[in-house]
């Protein structure tokens, strides 16, 4: 009976190969003299060796060029189910008695009850999101609007979230043959709700802060950060990349998008503004922490608005 089962996943993560190991040491590398041969250009001809002693398995790096990712040590003691990344190839180690998931019924796919449970979960998440957005709309209206119109007003956001979650689920399915639709739906809904909360927090800050630049910067920074977090979680399920790389990619994409939109805004912005630009938010009295000045002090502080700019 095999003492160790090696699961090898290539770069695409779509193909898995299993090698039962009956005797140690097991040499793994790209060279043909290995026990397990891996066709990955980032793996060395002799990359690592797995040995066994009284305490369990020992993985030794054979002074390979790219090492074992996420692990600076040259010797690792993995447990059953742990994975090692060498080059672009993932190796998982299993004991023969490692537990497996219960058997799925051939008829489960057509289970109508399951379908309705899924539908109910989706609906609940969307209703929660809609409720959040409904509250936001409710507090920003000042004319008589029927509740159904407010609900209709929340529909585009719900639709948007569904499309976004659907896109990531599809991507996950292509890569991993799994959907994780509810996860993507929950993540996207939380993102929208957090965006509403953050925008409100920034506007309360804006009420107290004089600088338009600081407010706009805060708005962009919070927007960029939230979107990066959303992308990170979206990618976490869809792609099997190391965390650091996922976080880097999410940030690159989010800040890249912010950068492009800022560039478009700045290049289209007229140098001349015929209207005064100032921090124009007003909030109820409870949200103010800045003390009021007397008129004379305010006017004295306003001397700075007087300046000359000679015509070219």
């Amino acid at each position, binding site marked *: 009976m095999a003492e160790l089962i090696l699961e090898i996943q290539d770069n695409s993560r779509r193909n898995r190969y299993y090698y039962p190991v009956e005797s140690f040491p097991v040499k793994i590398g790209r060279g043909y003299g290995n026990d397990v041969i891996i066709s990955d250009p980032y793996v060395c001809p002799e990359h690592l060796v797995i040995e066994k002693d009284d305490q369990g398995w020992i993985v030794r790096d054979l002074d390979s060029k790219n090492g074992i990712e996420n692990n600076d040590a040259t010797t690792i003691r993995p447990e059953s189910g742990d994975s090692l990344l060498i080059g672009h190839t993932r190796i998982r180690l299993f004991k023969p008695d490692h537990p497996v998931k219960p058997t799925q019924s051939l008829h489960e796919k057509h289970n109508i009850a399951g379908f309705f449970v899924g539908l109910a979960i989706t609906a609940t998440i969307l209703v929660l999101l809609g409720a959040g957005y409904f509250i936001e709309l*409710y*507090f*920003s*209206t*000042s*004319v*008589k609007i029927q509740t159904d119109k407010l609900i209709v007003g929340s529909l585009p956001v719900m639709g948007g979230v569904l499309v976004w979650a659907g896109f990531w689920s599809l991507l996950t399915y292509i890569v991993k043959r799994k959907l994780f639709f509810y996860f993507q739906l929950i993540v996207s809904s939380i993102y929208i709700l957090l965006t509403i909360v953050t925008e409100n927090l920034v506007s309360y800050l804006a*009420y107290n802060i*004089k600088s338009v630049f600081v407010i706009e910067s805060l708005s962009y920074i919070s927007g960029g950060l939230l979107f990066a977090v959303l992308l990170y979680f979206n990618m976490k399920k869809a792609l099997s990349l190391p965390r650091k790389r996922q976080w880097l990619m999410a940030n690159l994409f989010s800040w890249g998008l912010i950068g492009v939109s800022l560039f478009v805004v700045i290049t289209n912005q007229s*140098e*001349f*503004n*015929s*209207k*005064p*630009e*100032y*921090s*124009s*938010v*007003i*909030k*109820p*009295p409870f949200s*103010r922490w*800045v*003390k*009021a*000045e*007397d*008129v*004379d002090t*305010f*006017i004295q*502080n*306003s*001397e*700075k*608005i*007087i*300046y*000359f*700019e*000679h*015509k070219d």
Partner: protein
Amino acid sequence: MKKLPEIVFISILLLFLSLSVSAKPVDAEYLYGSLKSRIYQIQVIDVASDKKSSIGSGFMISEKGLIATNYHVISGVIHSPEKYRIEYLDYEGRKGNLELVDIDIVHDLAIVHGDLDDIPPLEISVQKMSKGAHIYSLGNPHDLGMTIIEGTYNGLLEKSLYEKILFSGALNPGMSGGPALDNKGKVIGVNVSTAGNDLSFLVPARYLSELLQNLKDSSEPVDFTERVEQQLFNNQQEYMGKLLKNEWGSMNLGGLVLPAELDDYFKCWGKTDENKDQLYNHSYSACSSPDSIYISSDFDTGEIDFRYDWFDADKLNTLQFYTRYSSKFEGSFSTNSATKEDVTNYKCNTGFVSLQDKDWKVALCARNYKDFTRLYDLSLTMALVSEYDRGIVINLNASGIAKDMLFQFVRRFMGDIDWQN
């Protein structure tokens, strides 16, 4: 002996008849015929294309070839002397160059000079006239040819910062700068603007007379930009100085006592929203000075206007109310359509100010005139922020005022806001 009284009677009758004939008001035909040689079309010529870019009218006011017109007719030459020049066109189609001699930007007058010696000038009359008198205006409307219009003198505008004659006659574009004459053919005013429907305005002739008397030695080159700035500066010192000394009129709105007619010439009006779907109450009042000074086609100055928007939450909760209220604080308006060639961007100071134990959020902004650096446009926006269910947004704009006047005006305006007992 018997015939003597008859002879005397006939002689007296003849004398009276002859006198009444000589005193009979001249008609438009006679006036036009006798004065047409002294009226000109004034053309501002685009140097690059050698075509006229704007037209107006003008008339001879001295034997030395001085012609009067409006400042706004020839203003292009002051702002872009390299792009434009001025020409006259007389009734016989003769053309010639004109040079700018002096201006009065406040009253929209200009004097130009051409090689037109020996043309008798029109006489200027500064005599008072009675309402209802027939007067005649000459000019070249829409470049259609020299025209004479008969109308009625309706006195000086009663509520106006700058004196203007109300002329009930149809002035049209192109007639600006032309003379308005009494029935003796004397100049009593200069055509300047129209509000349509026979409502037209003339600059009283006394301002032209003053400008003519104060003409400087023409050999000295004049920096017209500097001259415009000086005139605008002096003018605002005068009227702002008077405003600051005035006892201001007041109005009540939502429990507040607020500045209203700052002088006789200010006009105020108000309105309350009638939208039944609206869950809050909103009323506004606005006041403005109707006079402005033309600097260039898109740049007027010398205006003051302010507006109060009162809000009462009524059926809205505090958060809903403040969302609506806040949107008004963003919407500061400016009546001045100056471009980036004329003014800098606004620079603002925002903060919370305490007035009569109530707190306000205030944005005080100013922008500088690029050519006339002693002058600024002011924009003050303030909103009451110490109440949960009501508020007022105040917008005050004043254009073309100097730094000291700006701050004194803001100080006085804010100081005059009070609460009803």
